[in-house]
């Protein structure tokens, strides 16, 4: 809990105890203002729980709500009448009936202020629920329906009734066709942002209508669509388009880019990554027409770069801030030319580019001193010299990705750490760095993300260095850092209490006592403990009781974890959404207990649970039927599980992945 939270807590408690003096005398408005200034949801919750005044203030003042279970949804919608943002993406087992009922319970005007709704992955919601939602929310502006793989034209047509819609995400709504898109573009002419990524049924015809009906469009994502150059011709008529992403559109080629270049000058960001038929010629003509381009992502689509492209890039000198050239074969001269041409660059992506050398990087960063993000993943020719020149020139550096750059060592990182006080993210996966490097990096007190996977020479000492100064660390990846022991974890939780994502896979020296330390990480959401063969149910219990925020847990190949551990999870980890228990030593009883208790659980991988009987699976799955959305099981179970169960799972929007892997026990 943050300091201001504690203070308020104290005041509120005192106020109540003193009978009306203190917090209670403040007006709801003021309390609302106070609540707005609380950054952490946990603090707000504390206030709410301690003081009625705060509870009332929050009830009238709360704008955003993220619901994790469907049962309290009607009550919550009633309790917070001035909601503007509603996130139902994590709401387990939400379906049409429950959504409609909740909306009805909120009453007329109860959701009148709602502007944004997120229904991502809410695969149980169909057109009936969406119709009810849209009818109850006249001011709806943004809807996120992404990854509702079952959503089709009817669902989208229901959304089309929201005439004021400005933002719509339909990523991977696989059944949406041109017809659904047409419904939306006719119904919502003020659309400004639209993503139809992965909606493979949408064709040029639909995009053409979109361009005709939605002139306000500013951002459009047509990635992975089977659309061709005709679509780009239509898109080029959009006067206000600023952002266009068309990743993996293999039907688009240079001709299309040329058509696009004839459109208005509003375009600022173009992503043509993985467009196989785009060459530098097309990009050159695109740049030619777009003097104000700011972001250009051309990852994995170019095979060579011609002089024409480089010279055109130079015309974007004043505007271009982000350039991604992943997978391209680059030369020193090209990097130099980019450096000279585009010295306003803030972000450069050279991931998996072959031919990136120290000289190239030096000549690039010498001119581009504004660089904040440098991605050098797999540029395995670079050495400390490149890091030196980056450190000397890019004082604003925030993100440096050096995965698989195995020639660098602590000396180069020392320069970086000394010269880049703003460094927030560094990826050193597979770089073979040691504790000394971490000692230097510990100077970066702003560090949020640290990835040290496969650096097996890192020991508890190095972790202690990090812990000593990087209190803001949120993500730590220690994949296969198998020198780390329980003591390292003890040191870690001592200093880095904000960690949310922690990867300890294959650090097989860790035992239950180490997990006991982790139990104090209250904010931990994602924890990967794969193949920690020494941990048992006791360690899991301490995590389950301590890490209240846990959302994702990977226990694959934790051979010693048994029913006791799952029981602890079932009793305590109420927010757990994803769980992997393959190879765990659980029985049918433990599984049933787990699946029937965890009401947020949506995704479970349970391959090779050798102690679970068929009946065990059957009963456990029946218990969790309405909630599960993803399931991974052995193929052999497909035939022995009852067909009714499988049908029921399917009807509830659950996708089952049947795998056929051999049972192999390994210890590393």
């Amino acid at each position, binding site marked *: 809990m943050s300091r201001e939270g504690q203070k308020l807590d104290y005041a509120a408690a005192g106020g109540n105890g003193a009978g009306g003096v203190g917090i209670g005398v403040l007006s709801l408005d003021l309390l609302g203002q106070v609540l707005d200034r609380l950054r952490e949801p946990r603090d707000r919750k504390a206030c709410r729980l301690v003081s009625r005044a705060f509870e009332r203030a929050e009830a009238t003042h709360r704008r955003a709500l993220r619901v994790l279970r469907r049962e309290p949804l009607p009550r919550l919608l009633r309790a917070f009448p001035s909601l503007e943002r509603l996130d139902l993406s994590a709401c387990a087992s939400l379906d049409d009936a429950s959504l409609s009922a909740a909306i009805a319970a909120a009453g007329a005007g109860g959701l009148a202020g709602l502007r944004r709704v997120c229904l991502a992955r809410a695969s149980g919601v169909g057109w009936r629920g969406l119709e009810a939602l849209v009818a109850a929310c006249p001011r709806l502006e943004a809807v996120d329906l992404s990854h509702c793989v079952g959503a089709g034209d009817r669902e989208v047509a229901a959304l089309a009734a929201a005439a004021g819609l400005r933002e719509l995400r339909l990523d991977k709504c696989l059944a949406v066709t041109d017809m659904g898109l047409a419904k939306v573009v006719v119904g919502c002419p003020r659309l400004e942002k639209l993503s139809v990524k992965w909606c493979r049924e949408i064709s040029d015809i639909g995009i*053409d*209508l979109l361009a005709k009906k939605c002139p306000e469009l500013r951002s459009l994502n047509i990635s992975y669509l089977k659309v061709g150059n005709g679509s780009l011709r239509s898109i080029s008529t959009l006067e206000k388009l600023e952002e266009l992403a068309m990743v993996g559109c293999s039907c688009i080629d240079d001709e299309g880019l040329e058509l696009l270049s004839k459109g208005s000058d509003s375009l600022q960001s173009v992503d043509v990554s993985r467009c196989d038929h785009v060459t530098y010629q097309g990009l050159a003509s695109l740049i030619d027409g777009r003097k104000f381009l700011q972001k250009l992502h051309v990852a994995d689509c170019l095979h060579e770069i011609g002089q024409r492209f480089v010279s055109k890039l130079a015309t974007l000198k004043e505007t271009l801030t982000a350039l991604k050239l992943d997978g391209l074969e680059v030369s020193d001269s090209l990097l130099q030319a980019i450096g000279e041409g585009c010295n306003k660059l803030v972000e450069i992506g050279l991931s998996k580019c072959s031919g990136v050398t120290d000289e190239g990087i030096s000549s690039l960063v010498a001119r581009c001193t504004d660089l904040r993000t440098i991605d050098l993943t797999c540029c395995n020719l670079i050495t400390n010299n490149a890091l030196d020149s980056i450190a000397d020139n890019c004082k604003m550096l925030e993100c440096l990705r050096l995965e698989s750059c195995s020639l660098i060592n602590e000396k180069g990182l020392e320069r970086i750490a000394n010269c880049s006080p703003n460094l927030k993210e560094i990826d050193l996966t597979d770089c073979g760095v040691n504790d000394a490097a971490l000692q230097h990096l510990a100077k970066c007190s702003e560090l949020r993300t640290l990835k040290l996977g496969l650096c097996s020479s890192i020991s508890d000492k190095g972790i202690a260095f990090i812990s000593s100064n990087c209190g803001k660390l949120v993500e730590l990846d220690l994949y296969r850092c198998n020198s780390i022991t329980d003591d390292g974890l003890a040191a870690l939780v001592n200093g880095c209490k904000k960690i949310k994502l922690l990867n300890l896979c294959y650090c097989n020296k860790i035992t239950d006592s180490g997990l006991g330390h982790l139990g104090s990480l209250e904010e931990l959401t994602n924890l990967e403990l794969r193949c920690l063969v020494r941990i048992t149910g006791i360690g899991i219990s301490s995590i389950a009781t301590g890490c209240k925020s846990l959302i994702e847990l990977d226990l694959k190949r934790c051979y010693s974890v048994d029913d006791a551990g799952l029981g602890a999870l079932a009793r305590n980890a109420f927010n757990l959404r994803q769980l992997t228990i393959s190879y765990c030593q659980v029985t049918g009883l433990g599984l049933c207990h787990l699946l029937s208790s965890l009401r947020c659980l949506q995704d479970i991988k349970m391959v090779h649970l050798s102690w679970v009987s068929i009946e065990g699976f059957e009963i456990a799955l029946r218990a969790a039927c309405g909630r599960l959305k993803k399931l991974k099981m052995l193929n052999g179970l497909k035939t022995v599980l009852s067909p009714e169960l499988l049908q029921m799972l399917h009807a509830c929007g659950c996708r089952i992945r049947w795998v056929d892997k051999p049972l192999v026990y390994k210890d590393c």
Partner: protein
Amino acid sequence: MDRGQNHIHGQSAANLCYQFGSDNPLLGMGIQQPFVPFTSPFGASSSTNIPHMDWNPATMLDNLTFIEDKIRQVKDVIRTMVDNGGQLPCRQGDLTQQQQVVNADLTCLIVQLISTAGSLLPSLKNSSFLSHPPAGHMDTVNHVGSSSSFIPNVTTISEENKEDMCSPEDYEELFKGFTDGAMEGGIEIDNVFVEEQDAKDGDEGGDASMDGENLPPGSYELLQLEKDEILAPHTHFCSICGKGFKRDANLRMHMRGHGDEYKSPAALAKPPRDASAEHELVKRYSCPFVGCKRNKLHKNFQPLKTILCVKNHYKRSHCEKSYTCSRCHTKKFSVMADLKTHEKHCGRDKWLCSCGTSFSRKDKLFAHVALFQGHTPALPADEPKNSSDQISRVGSHQEPAKFPSSMSSSFMWGTSSSDDRGLDIKGLAGCSEDILSTGNFGSFNFSFGPADGFTGEPSGSTFSVLPPEHFQSAQKKGKN
């Protein structure tokens, strides 16, 4: 004109033809024969144009006088031949020479007759034309002329097709060639052929380009069918019972009922296509409707490509839309095929708009939606599709009553000139080679040149035998 004469020339190979042709009481085949000579001369040379459209008494008189003279000359020649025939049968050279002369003269005569009669035809009554006994008489010469008026004007044709027909296969081919050509609407003939030695050539020579357009020479040949020809329902007629057919194949099937001789594989076979068509000029057609863009008089004239185009264009643009869709009862068509095409899709348009309009194609619907504010595609479940029970009603639709086949046909013949394609060259090129290879006709063919085919046949009689229906039938085939 004498049948005996023909037999003499006919010789062995020609016998087949005779069996099928002149001696055959079934006229369907015999009829064809006379046209062989007609077509073959095309191959020859000469570029005389006979303006047959103008009805000028003076010209007519000239023509008739000329014909009279010519007949007298031919008579003389033949008389001498008859006289000499008994005495000096072995003098082949003389005979050949005389044959040549007769040949040429006869050709000339017939062309003249045709052109003269052709110009008369517009004034002829259909009834009289049709009521003529179909059986062969020498005195139906006029008919011959008129009927064959689709041959007349001349331009150029290659030398290749001088051969006579002699085998059934060839015959079949010829038959096809003829009917095809006639069907192609063979009316306005620009290409007809006349012998060189014809004295009248010069007089008759007119403008080949009757349409008065300044076409680049050799670019294409322009033909114009008349309304009645275009609208005639049948193009193939049984020479025995007069029944009309749209397709030659159907006629052939029908002919089986008239005797065993029509059942032979050769008689039933489809007349093979022939390669020499490439040598012809490209043909283009003009719509008879004045003021139409497809009419040759139009400022921005755009010719039609085929007879079928002409027919469909004329019906679609200048005729009443008499076929109504039995499902939607709104769409009307003047071409039966259009109705059938529509009925295939009518009611099955799966792309619906919120306004109730349905489209057969998604892009059409989207164009509609893009055009009209507020219109939106209707999802299939929103609005039920047109009930499928209507489908059963399709096909109940019948074609309207056909034209009385008797009337229009002869009339159309008169007014318009015919295309020569039927008589062409097409059907003949292939067979001529065969004949050459057999060598049966060897000397005969070569020595007689272009007209030999004609003399080789029982010309007069066969011509006279021609029932007018046959021409109708040939012509109507084009409508199919």
